[in-house]
């Protein structure tokens, strides 16, 4: 039994309980704490992806893969937010070259460029370590990008499958959460139900790189064996946690 029952309440959850009161309102310290958390989430949405830094991080991994940059058809952040359809299409005049590949990995800014900046390169390294026997296309860094942009990237590079690492919508307590979407036999018009998703990758608070990469590699192997991805692909027990 704790002496202060409100302290016990606070200790038992990440939710913002027992904040105290100034009259009926929040005390100033809590008001500002909430404002700071919202500001961090807003900045995570709007600060552009530093593609030079991500490219340098990828090259520093020493994987021997080229890096290609593309943008979606959305012109700027405001249009990106209003027009998800444009974020799923490649801008005209892109620099992608087709080849013989089994998979292409896309680092997409999504709704949290911060997540890709922080977790993109190390997550990529953990994935590629586990892709024995896959012919991997040059790494694509995509801005103003939604998940389905990966389908067009796959088509343009000639890759059979696509792995999209994308910044997830920031919450007030998690601004840098990365998601992974895998689509086998990717092409324009694929539905979300035809993809497999791993979310909340943000060590040390969320899922770690090794755990996510291990699960993804299992899914990809199974997808190649059965020739499909999505809800029909039985999730590994690790995904049901």
């Amino acid at each position, binding site marked *: 039994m704790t002496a202060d029952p*409100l302290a016990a309440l606070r200790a038992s*959850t990440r*939710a913002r309980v027992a904040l105290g009161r100034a009259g009926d309102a929040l005390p100033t310290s809590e008001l500002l704490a909430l404002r700071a958390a919202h500001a961090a989430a807003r900045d995570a949405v709007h600060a552009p992806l530093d593609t030079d830094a991500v490219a340098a991080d990828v090259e520093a991994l020493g994987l021997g893969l080229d890096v290609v940059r593309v943008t979606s058809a959305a012109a700027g952040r405001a249009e990106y*937010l209003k027009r998800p359809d444009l974020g799923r299409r490649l801008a005209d005049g892109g620099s992608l070259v087709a080849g013989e590949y089994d998979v292409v990995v896309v680092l997409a800014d999504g709704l949290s460029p911060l997540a890709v900046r922080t977790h993109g390169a190390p997550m990529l390294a953990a994935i590629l370590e586990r892709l024995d026997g896959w012919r991997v296309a040059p790494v694509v860094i995509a801005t103003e990008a939604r998940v389905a942009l990966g389908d067009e990237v796959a088509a343009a590079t000639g890759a059979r499958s696509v792995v999209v690492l994308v910044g997830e919508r920031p919450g007030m307590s*998690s601004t840098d959460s990365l998601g992974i979407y895998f689509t086998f036999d990717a092409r324009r018009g694929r539905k979300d139900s035809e993809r497999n998703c791993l979310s909340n990758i943000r060590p040390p608070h969320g899922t770690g790189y090794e755990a996510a990469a291990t699960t993804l590699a299992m899914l990809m192997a199974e997808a190649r064996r059965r020739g499909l991805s999505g809800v029909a692909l039985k999730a590994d027990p690790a995904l049901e946690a």
Partner: protein
Amino acid sequence: MTTRRTTLGGHTYEFDDLAALLAAATPERSGDSLAGLAAASEQERVAAQEILADLPLATFLQEQVVPYETDEVTRLIVETHDAAAFAPVSSLTVGGFRDHLLRPETDTTALAPGLTPEMVAAVSKLMRVQDLIAVGRRTPVVTAFRSTVGLPGTMATRLQPNHPTDDPVGVTASIVDGLLLGCGDAVIGINPATDSPNRTVDLLHLIEEVRSRYEIPTQSCVLAHVTTSIEIMERGAPVDLVFQSVAGTEAANSGFGVTLAMLGEAHEAALSLNRGTVGTNCMYFETGQGSALSADAHHGVDQQTLEARAYAVARAFDPLLVNTVVGFIGPEYLYDGKQIARAGLEDHFCGKLLGVPMGVDVCYTNHAEADADDTDTLLTLLGVAGCSFVICVPGGDDVMLHYQSLSFHDALYARQVLGLSPAPEFAEWMTRMDMLTADGRVRELGSDSAALKALTAGVS
């Protein structure tokens, strides 16, 4: 199809059918632009509103925006229409209907069975914010289970104690925090992290244990899929309210995995449990503009008209609670605080006029152009409009769904500045717990107070 045209500012504007006219007449919002349905200019929007104002209200009984043959929501709307209730307004145009609703002698509550969602959506498109508030305020809808929701002069709250892993101690902490701040009179309702039947039953027992230990006159709900609720009711779980997300077209509901027949089955099952003490309303629905478009099931109809059709689905099952989750769906449907506020007031107005016990989840996501000033504004406007209930989470930060709703403090503010009370049964309970001051404020409890010690006993 009837093409309708008018001339404004030297241009002639044409609208091929009723759906195109309604869409063009809708105040600006990003979702209608995304769907390619919005007016191309401000003048086209007003031209559409002028045609709409002159349209006989009865047109909506003859022309359907979503085909009768292929959509069970349209069939529900047509087949349950009450001609006698419609009679007082049957000769009016949409513009005349607005004038009629604003006259003090009009009984706005009696019209509900005679109104269709399309009529209500149409008139809302002509209205300013003050009209939406004035008519909403004088159209109360009262429902009851263990507490009574929607009485004039009250505003109830859903206490939403979500937790990312459904941890029982964490959920309980949020429930206790909300109760100490006078919230939870509409429902204690959890969005479960997973839709497993066993988890749902565990969470229901958790709320049931808190509720019965302190004899709180409220109801519990775990917002699982309706099929999960049906399954666990068969297993004898203590289900007060059956929840389901619903939308305004059969195809969009299909995207939610739900049909009218399934809702009917769940409603019958919940009624037969007979767990209410002061009423029998035992369904809870959530809706939101844009859900049909996001399911690619909008039939070329604007998102606000489709939202009103979702209330026709809801009202068929005598719900205790219905709320729009107005800022949750994202900026591609409602871009900023202005669009969210307008939509919240439209949704409340349309729900009340259709006889639905309408509440609002006053909220926003972090990629919308909105902040806590916008939720303060909408909360205040909704309080004036007589909104039945709002949703509250600790600190306004939902740590499971990652969006911002209202805090418990926000509910205290709105009740105080607007002179609103909790549901009467809940207010009596708070008085018994010595949680209210003589002038009706929620007492700030010291750590040695009896109520605080009692309510925190299960956590510390």
